[in-house]
C-alpha cells in the first residue's frame, strides 16, 4: 500500500466498473480478500465483529447477524443481485463511501463502529463520524478498514429498513432508510428511546437524521408520532436531482418511508 496511487480492493464491484468507464488507472491494485484479519464474523462480548472483507452473501447467511442485526441482513439482500452480493464486501461498501450505499444507513442506525488500521497502528472510530462529505472519509491515505463492529441487539430494540429503488432488484436506491429505537414503557404507554435514523441518497453522504431523531426521542409510539417524524424528515434534508430521481420525489418519499418505519414500531 506504500506505492503511489495504490488502491486497496476487495470485491471490485464498483472500482472495476468506474475504471473501465473512465479509463482511470492505479499505480498498484492490492487485493485484500484473502487477508485473515479481514475475514469472518465473531461474537466479541456485547458486539458482533464483522471482517471488512465479508461479502454480502456471507452476511445473509450468518446466524449472529440475523439475530442481532436483522436489518443488515435485509440490506445485504437488496444490494445488486446474487452475483454482486457474492463479491461485494461490507468494508468495500463503506470505503467506497457512496451516498447511496445500501448498507450504510443500517450501520448508522445500529450505532456501528469501525476498526481502522494504517502503518501508524489501529484505531476505533464511531461509524457516525466516518464520513466527512461527498466520497470523503476520515480514512488516511494508505489506511484500511479492518473490522466493522455492531452492538448486540437489546430485547426492547426495534429495527426497521426500507429501500425505494428504481426497480425490484439490481437497482440503485432513490431513498434508503434504516431505523433503530428502543421501546420503553412509561405509564402504560410505549415511548421511544435511543433513536437512530440513518438515511442514504438524500445528501452527499449517508447521514443520520438528527432533527427527526430528536423529535422521536421520548415520543409516544403511534401514528401521530409517525406523521410528525415524516414532516420533520422531509424538512431536514436537501437532496438533489439526478438521473435516477428528483429532489422533490426523494424528499417526499423519505417522509413516506419514515412514516411507515415509525408506524411499524407499533404494529
Amino acid at each position, binding site marked *: 500500500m506504500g506505492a503511489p496511487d495504490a488502491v486497496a480492493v476487495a470485491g471490485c464491484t464498483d472500482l472495476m466498473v468506474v475504471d473501465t468507464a473512465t479509463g482511470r488507472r492505479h499505480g498498484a491494485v492490492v487485493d485484500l480478500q484473502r487477508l485473515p484479519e479481514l475475514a469472518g464474523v465473531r461474537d466479541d462480548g456485547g458486539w458482533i465483529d464483522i471482517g471488512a472483507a465479508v461479502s454480502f452473501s456471507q452476511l445473509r447467511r450468518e446466524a449472529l447477524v440475523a439475530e442481532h442485526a436483522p436489518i443488515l441482513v435485509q440490506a445485504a439482500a437488496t444490494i445488486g443481485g446474487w452475483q454482486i452480493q457474492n463479491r461485494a464486501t461490507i468494508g468495500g461498501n463503506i470505503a467506497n463511501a457512496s451516498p447511496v450505499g445500501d448498507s450504510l444507513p443500517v450501520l448508522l442506525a445500529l450505532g456501528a463502529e469501525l476498526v481502522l488500521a494504517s502503518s501508524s497502528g489501529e484505531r476505533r472510530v464511531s461509524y457516525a463520524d466516518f464520513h466527512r462529505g461527498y466520497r470523503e472519509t476520515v480514512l488516511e491515505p494508505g489506511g484500511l478498514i479492518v473490522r466493522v463492529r455492531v452492538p448486540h441487539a437489546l430485547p426492547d430494540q426495534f429495527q426497521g429498513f426500507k429501500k425505494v429503488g428504481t426497480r425490484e*432488484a439490481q437497482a440503485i436506491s432513490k431513498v434508503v432508510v434504516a431505523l433503530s429505537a428502543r421501546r420503553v414503557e412509561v405509564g402504560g404507554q410505549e415511548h421511544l428511546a435511543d433513536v437512530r435514523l440513518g438515511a442514504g441518497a438524500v445528501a452527499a453522504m449517508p447521514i443520520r437524521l438528527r432533527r427527526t431523531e430528536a423529535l422521536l426521542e421520548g415520543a409516544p409510539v403511534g401514528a401521530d408520532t409517525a406523521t410528525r417524524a415524516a414532516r420533520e424528515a422531509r424538512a431536514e434534508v436537501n437532496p438533489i436531482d439526478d438521473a435516477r430521481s428528483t429532489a422533490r*420525489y426523494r424528499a417526499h418519499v423519505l417522509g413516506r418511508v419514515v412514516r411507515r418505519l415509525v408506524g411499524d414500531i407499533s404494529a
Partner: protein
Amino acid sequence: MASRDQHGIHPPFADADGKRRFGVIGKPLRKVDGIAKATGQAVYADDIQLPGMLHAKTLRSPHAHARIVRIDTSRAEALPGVHAVITGRSMPIPYGVIPWTPDENALAVDRVRFIGDEVAAVAAVDEDTANAALELIDVEYELLAVYLDPVEALENCTDAIHPNPKRPERGNLSKRVELDFGDVADGFERADVIVEDDYTFHGTTHTAIEPHCAVATYSPDKLLTLWSATQITHYVHRALARVLELPAHSIRVIQPCLGGAFGGKSDPFSLEFCVAKLAMITGRPVKMLWTREEVFYAHRGRHPMRLHYKTGATKDGKVTAVDAKILIDGGAYSSFGLVTTYYSGQLLTGPYDFPAYHYDSTRVFTNKPPCGPKRGHGSVQPRFAFEVQLDEVAEALAMDPIELRRANWQGEHTKTVNGQRITSNGFMQCLAEVERASRWKERRGKLPFGRGLGVAGSMYISGTNYPIYPNDMPQAGIQLKVDRSGLVMAFTGGNDIGQGSNTVVRTIVCEELGLEPDMVRVVAADTDLCPVDLGAYSSRVTFMVGNATIDAARKLRHQIAGAVAAEWEIDPGRIFMGSGQVFDLEDRAKCISSMEAFQIAEARCDTLGSTGAYNTPTLGGDYRGGTIGASPAYSFTAHAVEVQVDVETGRITVDNCWIAHDCGRALNPMLVAGQMEGSAYMGLAEAVLEHHDVNRFGLHAGPSLLDYRIPTSVDTPELHALIVESLDPEGPYGAKEAGEGPLHPSIPAISNAVFDAVGIRLRHLPFTPGKVLAALRERRAAETAVGSAKESV
C-alpha cells in the same frame, strides 16, 4: 408465378379415414438451436476467433454537432501494435437502409451529428492497443448549433443537421406525411362526444443482450467475408457492395447465432464497413465488438413522439372520425424514418372501423442517437395515445371500455379507410379471452382503491409488400436439398434472431415431407449458400418464409410421392408420408423409410432438390405511400392488465397481464407464447422503467444496463398468453405474425388500469413515480376545490 399460390390452411395429407391431421404443426417442438444455446455451444459473432485476427475500436465524437476541420492519425499509426487507421475519407460513399435517404457514412466525412457518432477506426493486435491508439488521433472540430428539441430543430434551424443545398427551406425536416381519408369534418359534425388531448411517447431502446459484433476476412482471391450480428443479411450485403465499391458477388455475409435484435440490428452499421475495410487494408481478419455503451449510441430505438389526437364518437360509442398530429424526434439520421413516419399514421386503422381519418406526421432531425425500428415499428406510439383516448371516450359515454371496443370492430375480410385489405380478424375473440381471464365483469371498477384493471387492443402487419428497394423478385426464397441418407437440408436467407424462424422452417419441411425433426437441418442467413430473403423485420418471416418453405416442400413431395407410386405401380394419391415413413394408404404392408423413398426418387428423377418462393399479392391504397403498411395479413391483440398503485411512493406494480393474440395459427404454440410474453414484458418495461434520453449537452443520460433500467425477473408480472387462432386464408397453414403485435396494447392498458385504480389519466410516458404522485396531488386538489365549492354553496 407459382410463389403467389396460396397453400391453404390444411395439412398436406388426408389420413386413411379422410381426416386431415397435422404431424408436427401445432406441437411445442424444441427450437433447433435450443440445446446449443442452453449449453453454451452456440457460436455468436464474438465467439469467432481466426488466426492472426486483429481487434478494432471506434473513435466517437465528443460533440453533438460539429464540422470536422482536420483529422491527424499519424500518431496513432505510429503506435506499436497498430495495423491500420481509417477515417471517413477511406469510405466516403453514403448509404442508408432506405435507398431514398442515403445520409449515413461508415465514418463521419466532414460532420458529426451526435455525441457518439463514429469518426475513425483502428485495427490493432488487441483491444487495449486499439483503445490507446484512439487517444492518439487528433481531431479538430468546429462546433455548430446543437438541436436537442424537435420543435426547436424545426423552427429555429440555422445549421441544418443534413444540409440540403437544393432545398434549404427543409431545414431539419426529415419527412412529412399528411393523409386524409373519408370526410373528417363530417365525422366530427356527427359526433355526440369529442375527446381531444396531448400524449407523449418517450425514447426507448432495444437492449438485446448481445452487443453488435462483426468479423471480416479478405482472401487473396478478393473474397470479402463478413460475419455480423445482423437481422438483415441481405441489406448488409447490398450496403457493403455500395460503400466498399466491390461487386456484390465477391462479398459473402453470414449471420451467426444472434443474441436478440428487436429491430436494433436492422440497419447496416458502421462496424460492419469498418472491419471489412480494415481487413482489406491489412489482409488480416478483423473483429469489432461494441461495448454496451456503444450499443446505446448506435440506438435505432423507438422514436420519441408528441402526439395530439382528436376522436369523435356517437352516443352508442361508434367512432365517427379520428384526427392526429404527430411530431417525431428522429435523432441524427434517417435510418428507417421514412417508413416510421408513414407507419405512425397508416397502422392505426384497425381493429376498429374508422369512417374518417386524417393524420399529419412530421419527423425531425435532432443531434441525438439516431432512432429507428423497434419491435412494433412506428405504431406502438400512436397505439398508446389512441387506446388511452378510446378509454377516455368510454369514460365520457359511461361505457364499458371492452364494450366500446366491440362496438367499433371492423370485421373480417374488409378494407380499412386507408385502403388496407383485412383478411382474418380474431379481435373479438381476443377481447372475449381477456374479459374472461381477467374476470373483468366482476372486477373492473370494483377493486379497492389503488388496484385496477385496464384493457387495450391493437393490430400489426405480417410483413409488408413494400420491399425497401423496388424490385419484382420474391421477398422470400428457399432451397431444399435431399440426401440419400434421409436428410433434408433447408437453405433459407431468413434471419433467426432468437424468434425461432429456423425452427419454423424445419417444422414445415417435416410436416410436408412426413419427416421427424432430426431428419431436417437448416442453414440460414449465409449469402453464399442461401437464396435471398429480406430478413427479420416487419414480422414477415413466419408468413413469407413459411409460405416459401411450403412451396418448395410440396414440389419435392410431388416428385417423391410420384416416384414411389410409379415404383409400386399405384396411384400417387395412395402414397402417405409421415413419421419418417412412406406407405400405401390402401396396403399398409407396403411401407418403406423416408430414406428408401428418397433413394427411389433419386434413381428415377436424378439428384433431388427444389426451390420455393413467396411474394405478396398487390396490396395497398392507390395513393403515394399506400403500399407502406399494406400487409398480406394482420394480427390482432387485446390485453387486460391488473395494476397496483402505491399512493405513498407513486410506484405502479403490474401484477397480471393477460395477452390474447390472434396469430392465425400457432405453428409452434411454445414459440408463439414466448413471443407474446416477451412482447408484453417489453411493453411493461417501456411504460414504467425505460427512458432513452440525453442531457442538456446531448450526452446520453445513462448508457449502461444499471442506469437504463429494464425489468429483472422479480419486476416481471404474471404473463398469461392466450393464443387465438383465426386461420388466415393466405398464411402458412393459416399463420400470421406473433413477434411484434402483442407488444402494442400493454402500454395503454397499464395507463387505463391506473385510471381504474386511482382515477388519474397518465398520458405522458414513462409513468414514473414522480408523475404518478403529481397526478394524484392534482386530482386531490381538484376534488378539494370541488368539495369546497359545494360547501360554499
